[in-house]
């Protein structure tokens, strides 16, 4: 108690009661309100990049990543009525496009497009996501080629669409110019054409990415290893 305050007994009893009742009502109200994740709400339409840029107040890099986390909550959270395989992919791609436009150098949206959203059993949705990756690749081929390489593998092994896989592989060869793009990526069209199973191809690509030392994020490393394990299990079960 500071020198400027009167003792607690100076507070009238009715005020103690009112304070306690208001606090109890507040807690009861919150306890009775369902969590927002429990509501069966779907992904809302994507805001434009300009609107996101305006809302970022000059911090597009921070907002882009926070919006990615928000987007993740619609699939990985598990509380949504629609797991990501049944998300509206048109809207999802709209969100991803806005995020890419907000921070073009962030790899997060294309990482999720290639490794999360394209990994769906629905061929039409997978195709939509692969085309999104292909479209975005041309804006910055030297930085975005790993995601198109992933797309090429998915097109070959999951969609069984060899011409599509070759189109993606050829784009990597034709449009990447940076000296640090590995040879296997430049020659991807060759091993797309080879009679190689999915596990071997993924081992070359993901193993190459891991060996290059470019992937340092622990979360991404975990996801890569889990993906390789899943492929291995799938091959064993065959």
């Amino acid at each position, binding site marked *: 108690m500071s020198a400027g305050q009167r003792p607690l007994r100076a507070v009238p009893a009715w005020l103690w009661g009112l304070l306690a009742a208001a606090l109890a009502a507040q807690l009861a109200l919150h306890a009775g309100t369902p969590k927002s994740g429990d509501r069966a709400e779907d992904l809302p339409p994507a805001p434009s990049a300009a609107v996101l840029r*305006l809302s970022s107040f000059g911090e597009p890099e921070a907002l882009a990543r926070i919006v990615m986390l928000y987007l993740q909550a619609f699939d990985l959270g598990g509380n949504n009525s629609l797991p990501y395989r049944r998300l509206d992919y048109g809207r999802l791609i709209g969100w991803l496009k806005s995020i890419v436009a907000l921070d073009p150098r962030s790899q997060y949206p294309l990482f999720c497009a290639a490794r999360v959203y394209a990994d769906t059993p629905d061929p039409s949705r997978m195709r939509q996501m692969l085309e999104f990756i292909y479209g975005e690749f041309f804006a910055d081929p030297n930085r975005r080629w790993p995601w198109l390489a992933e797309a090429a593998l998915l097109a070959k092994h999951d969609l069984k669409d060899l011409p599509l896989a070759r189109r993606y592989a050829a784009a990597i060869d034709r449009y990447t110019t940076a000296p640090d793009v590995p040879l296997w990526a430049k020659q991807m069209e060759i091993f797309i054409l080879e009679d190689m199973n999915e596990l071997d191809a993924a081992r070359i690509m993901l193993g190459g990415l891991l060996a290059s030392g470019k992937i340092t994020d622990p979360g991404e490393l975990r996801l890569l290893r889990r993906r390789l394990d899943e492929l291995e299990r799938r091959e064993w079960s065959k």
Partner: protein
Amino acid sequence: MPTAILARLVLLEARRSALPWLAAASIALALLLATFLSAVALTEGRELRIAVVAALLRACAVFLVAMQVASSVQREIDDKGLEQMLSLPFPRAVQYLGRLAGFAVCAIGLAVLFALPLAPWAAAGPLALWAASLALECTLVAAAALFFSMSLAQLVGAISATLALYLLARSMAAIQAIAAGPLATESLGGELARWVVDALAFLLPRLDAVTRTEWLLYGAPAASDYARALGSLALYAVLVSAAGLFDFYRRAS
């Protein structure tokens, strides 16, 4: 040196106020939030942490500086301390600039303190540039807050005007892009709106070009761009200070 004495008084008041505790709470909150968010990130965890901490601490630094300046000046006005000071045989420029120097040192100290939590993740060079830019940005906010506090002589009005100027300056590039975008109408009204937005942009500092998180994530900016951005900010700080001094000289008592 009356200027130095006035500056020292301002710093002493800041040290004895809640400012150090609020600064520490801001750092703790930013680190906590960044740790939580980076834990749920699938990739770019380090980048997410840097971006969130930098953005939050930048906003906190500006808000704290504006609040400190406005509340300090308001207290001085309410206690008739300002009137008493004006009766002393010092030029008004010394009185105004002495206070401004104190608030500027306070702003620089806060910027340096807020750069420290980023040191474990960001490269030293870009972080030093970011901190210097934040220091100048906070100094500009201090100058603007002093100007509005002295001229409006109202706490809520001064804080609102300072933050409105700041937020508008940070969003102006995005507003201009929307106004000139393909969805903008070609009517006379649309043209007029674009003209007003462009005219407004001329009167505001380019806060969207300074203290950029992208420096911490993707590398330092070109020296010429950096110098131009900070130079324009310094020029605006001089402009606001001159305007404040102009108003202070016209003050009756």
